[in-house]
């Protein structure tokens, strides 16, 4: 299950990295992804992973949960490397590339409240998408709560039986149907509330685009990633 509430909670704590603007963090993470793409040797990729992990630890984020989230990326990279097995070093390179990229992305979403992340990417998305993105994220919390209640009710009434997948499916369908109807009703209510509050096709958002001292941090760490990757590419020749 997606632990959105935890990520939302992490984003609302405080550290110098948290205080940097979302735009600078997005630029820093992009440089981090670029570094992961350029780097081609496991030792330098490990160095990059250590760099981003230190940033996240410095931002007081729980490293075990962060590593679990990155583990998904590493796992799927590992599976991909199995399709065309080119030896252990290549598989390790692919896995580490995935982990470094995931860490860079998490450095943005785990340190920035989601409305601010969406506000920062608003200019690069076509018009209805930023509003829809905000609505989707908000709806996700509502639906995850409702789905959690429905699943608990199903379990308590014996509706989920691991040994009988068909019976479980038969019982799950009405629950998902109920969740869908509730989502559709909620969307109608939300639209009416938006109209009452003066919605005219654009959701107003906080404007806070000035640069602060902390904005140099993500740029610095992103540039450091690219530098490490370039040095690794030039010097590493096993």
């Amino acid at each position, binding site marked *: 299950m997606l632990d959105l509430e935890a990520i939302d909670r992490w984003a609302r704590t405080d550290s110098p990295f948290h205080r940097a603007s979302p735009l600078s963090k997005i630029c820093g993470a992009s440089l981090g992804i670029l570094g992961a793409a350029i780097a081609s040797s496991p030792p330098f990729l490990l160095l990059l992973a250590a760099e981003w992990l230190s940033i996240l630890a410095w931002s007081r984020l729980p490293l075990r949960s962060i590593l679990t989230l990155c583990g*998904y990326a590493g796992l799927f990279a590992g599976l991909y490397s199995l*399709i065309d097995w080119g030896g252990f070093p290549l598989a390790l390179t692919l896995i580490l590339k995935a982990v470094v990229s995931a860490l860079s992305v998490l450095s943005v979403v785990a340190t920035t409240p989601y409305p601010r992340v969406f506000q920062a990417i608003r200019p690069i998305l076509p018009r*209805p998408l930023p509003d829809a993105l905000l609505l989707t994220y908000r709806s996700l919390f509502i639906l995850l709560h409702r789905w959690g209640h429905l699943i608990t009710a199903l379990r308590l009434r014996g509706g989920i039986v691991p040994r009988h997948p068909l019976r479980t499916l038969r019982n799950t369908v009405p629950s*998902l149907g109920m969740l*869908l109807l509730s989502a559709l009703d909620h*969307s109608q209510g939300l639209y009416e509330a938006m109209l009452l509050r003066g919605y005219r096709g654009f959701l107003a958002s906080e404007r806070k685009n000035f640069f602060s001292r902390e904005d140099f941090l993500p740029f610095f760490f992103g540039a450091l990633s690219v530098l490490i990757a370039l040095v690794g590419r030039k010097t590493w020749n096993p």
Partner: protein
Amino acid sequence: MSHLHLPDGILPLWLVLSGWALAMIFLGLASFKTREGELRLARLGFLAALMIVAMSLELLPLAYHLNLGVLAGILLGPALGFLAAFLVDLILALLGHGGITVLGLNALILGLEIFLGNLLFRGACRLGIPPPPAAAGATVFSLFCSTSLMVLVVRLSKTAPSAILEHQPVPHFHAFLLLVYGLGSLGWLLEAALTAGIVRYLSRLRPAFLEDSC
């Protein structure tokens, strides 16, 4: 199956850029078609969220994730459906499920499933097939097509662009195909049963929601 879980830095640049270029064209077209649909924007938000909730349900013995893409296609239509595909993949990428650079390709794969789901469901309804079996058939076929697109992307990623037409073999690729289509087909059937069940539930309680598509 309609989602590449691949992270950043693995797929070749030409493939990533092609995916983004195509996704941007479809996003532009979809956004242009939905400029005035505020009510549907709220519905889009909730249905995209519902897809993410469904994706968090894993059918354990198969390691298969549900996604309800066809259901979203039936209720949203192809244009808003493509926007939903992009939003779902963007949020998942921000949470570390699939890379940011793979987002374009992921949106195309899920978008294809949604588009075909809508098209086939409409077509089947016009032929007089009742909504639940129409939804089941549309789900199986759409999932087959989106899985095939995903397989094609993986196959292309393992080959240099200059060698694509030479059909160079990729080791272990047949095993990969067997795994994806073998386990996937069981997942498609389960998802088809689930989608048909939800459509039947909806057609009994609120048939108005299906009127646009059927």
